[in-house]
């Protein structure tokens, strides 16, 4: 029983990190069909924002720095996303595969920039005092940093759901996603909506970066490791579907946790991939499918 609880928590914790990274992607990839490989570097930017704030404010204010990092990382990564959208992606709508390659090039440059600014060595970000330690429930160890990440993810999901469902801006975003030409003739300024979508999606990557600093050291190639898995979450969940992404992240996290417990980390990775391919045989469009007319 302890073991199962423990693995459930590990799975939940993996799922929350996957989801934190994937939430940004449901905006950029899911809604705009932009495969932003620089998303990983935006995560890195968020993580380094935390590091810079901590170094700037000194050891006395670690908690404060961490708290400030959350909104600031959102802004930093979001701004990077805006710049990227304005300079590059705007010119590539309708060429999804090319956005993948171009943003990869951008990612390479950002990685090198991070190396030149902060050194090739990983840096450490200290967790604030109130996040040290953990609690034990029914034999399962729940560490505070992981609980904190789960909390952040839940908050972000609620915020996104409110934004998309309850605000005029969110409604415009859904309209553009569902039918761009129709939204456009109805008076929605699609370019502006695109820019907002990209800002939010990239900002969420920054937020993910702050969360990831709690799990280990920060390096220039930090983002890539999480990015591919997050893309898989979006694919399995169904494009642009918040609900689908949540279910997919939970499923992949749990599968990873339980396969890894019974075998090894490398087999878990291969096993999860196999499960994904098999799943796509059954539901090629993902868990939650948006109804649309026309060919597949």
């Amino acid at each position, binding site marked *: 029983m302890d073991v199962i609880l423990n693995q459930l928590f590990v799975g939940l914790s993996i799922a929350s990190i996957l989801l934190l990274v994937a939430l940004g992607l449901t905006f950029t990839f899911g809604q705009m069909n932009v495969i932003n490989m620089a998303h990983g570097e935006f995560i890195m930017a968020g993580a380094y924002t935390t590091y810079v704030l901590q170094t700037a404010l000194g050891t006395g204010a670690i908690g404060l720095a961490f708290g400030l990092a959350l909104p600031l990382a959102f802004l930093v990564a979001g701004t990077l996303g805006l710049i990227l959208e304005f300079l*590059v992606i705007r010119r590539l709508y309708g060429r999804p595969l090319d956005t*993948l*390659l171009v943003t990869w090039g951008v990612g390479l440059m950002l990685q090198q920039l991070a190396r030149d600014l902060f050194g090739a060595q990983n840096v450490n970000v200290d967790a604030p005092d109130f996040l040290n330690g953990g609690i034990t429930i029914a034999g399962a160890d729940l560490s505070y940093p992981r609980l904190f990440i789960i909390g952040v993810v839940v908050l972000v999901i609620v915020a996104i759901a409110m934004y998309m469902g309850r605000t005029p801006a969110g409604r415009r975003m859904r309209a553009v996603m569902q039918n761009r030409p129709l939204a456009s003739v109805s008076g929605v300024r699609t370019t502006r909506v695109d820019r907002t979508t990209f800002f939010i999606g990239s900002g969420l990557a920054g937020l993910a970066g702050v969360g990831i600093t709690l799990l280990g050291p920060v390096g220039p190639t930090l983002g890539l490791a999480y990015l591919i898995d997050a893309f898989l979450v979006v694919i399995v969940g169904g494009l642009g579907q918040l609900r689908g992404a949540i279910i997919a992240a939970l499923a992949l996290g749990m599968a990873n946790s339980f396969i890894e417990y019974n075998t090894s980390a490398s087999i878990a990775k*291969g096993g999860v991939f196999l499960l994904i391919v098999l799943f796509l045989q059954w539901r090629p469009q993902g868990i939650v499918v948006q109804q649309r007319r026309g060919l597949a």
Partner: protein
Amino acid sequence: MSSLAKWLPSSTPKPSAFLVRFALMAVTLLLIAPVVLSDFRLSLLAKFLCFAIIALGIGLAWGQGGMLVLGQGLFFGLGGYCMGFHMKIVDAGPGNLPDILTYSGQYDSLPWLWKPFASAWFAVPMAILLPMAIAALLGAAVFRQRIRGAYFAILSQALAGAFVIVIVGNLSLTGGTNGLTNFQSFFGLSVIDPADQRILYFIVAIVLLALFLLTRALVLGRYGRLLIAARDDEDRVRFLGYDPARVKLVAYVLAAGMAGLAGALFVPVVGIMAPALLGIVPSVEMVIWVALGGRTALAWAAAGAVMVNWARSSISEQFPSGWLYLQGLLFVTVILFLPKGVGGLVENARRFVGARVSLEGGRPRVEKRPAPAATSAPATKDGL
């Protein structure tokens, strides 16, 4: 001036023009390069030609077939490890364990995974067939369900990532992150001796040229037409009664086989096979070569691999960090402004000069025939 026009190949190449160009390429690779280049540079070129073989496959699958294959490192690695296992066993001699297997102290005799690779008759075909088999499995599963575009790209990328984790995770069998190194001999040739390295260079160059001719023939034939049709409008191909999944599968499997063969040649040429050469990052780099060279023309795709790697080795020798910026910048610029890569640029320049020359000669050239396969527009409509 009009005599000059005769020497400039027209924009729709005639077979003879192709023969001239191919002969020039073959002479450069087989006669000029071995004379002009030092031993060190020549073996470097041999390495780049191995990469060019991968690029040729990507040119087929991506350039002609529209499948963005982001996981070619997997197939390259499978080929490399098949050959590497065999060479390690031969180096150790009969009855002895290869050094890689002794480090962990777990094995007294060859483990089951290694055993069949003692035979060259198993190892060499496997280096090509194993990648093809895996590509066939993944491709059949994916294309049949009409998973395409970015979905396919990310799946193939994730597979390469998972493969690296498996290799690193099974340290005692595969040498882990360090991979396989310290090779001595390759079918009687010494891996270290410069004279034997030259022979290896010729083997790689001839394989590349032969594969290029074969792939070109395939692309110009009926199958090539179908492949391009499937790239540009998969649904229409289906309505015409063909199965686009099968058409695409063939190109993907062939590309995987080429990457496997390249891996098998890479090991004796460079003397190493390690996970760092085949993960997600190197796999994307392989696509970068093709994008920079020119995805829609096979020859330019292969040339891209040599150009990018040559530039990297000469620039990064002096400015290690400068190269990474330059690579990123080059990449962004080329995709944004030159979707056909350097090859497209050369093609345009040639057309421009050709038009000028023929105008001066009083005979404006009008393009009537549709552009040939190798220069048709890149896939813009790649249904997501």
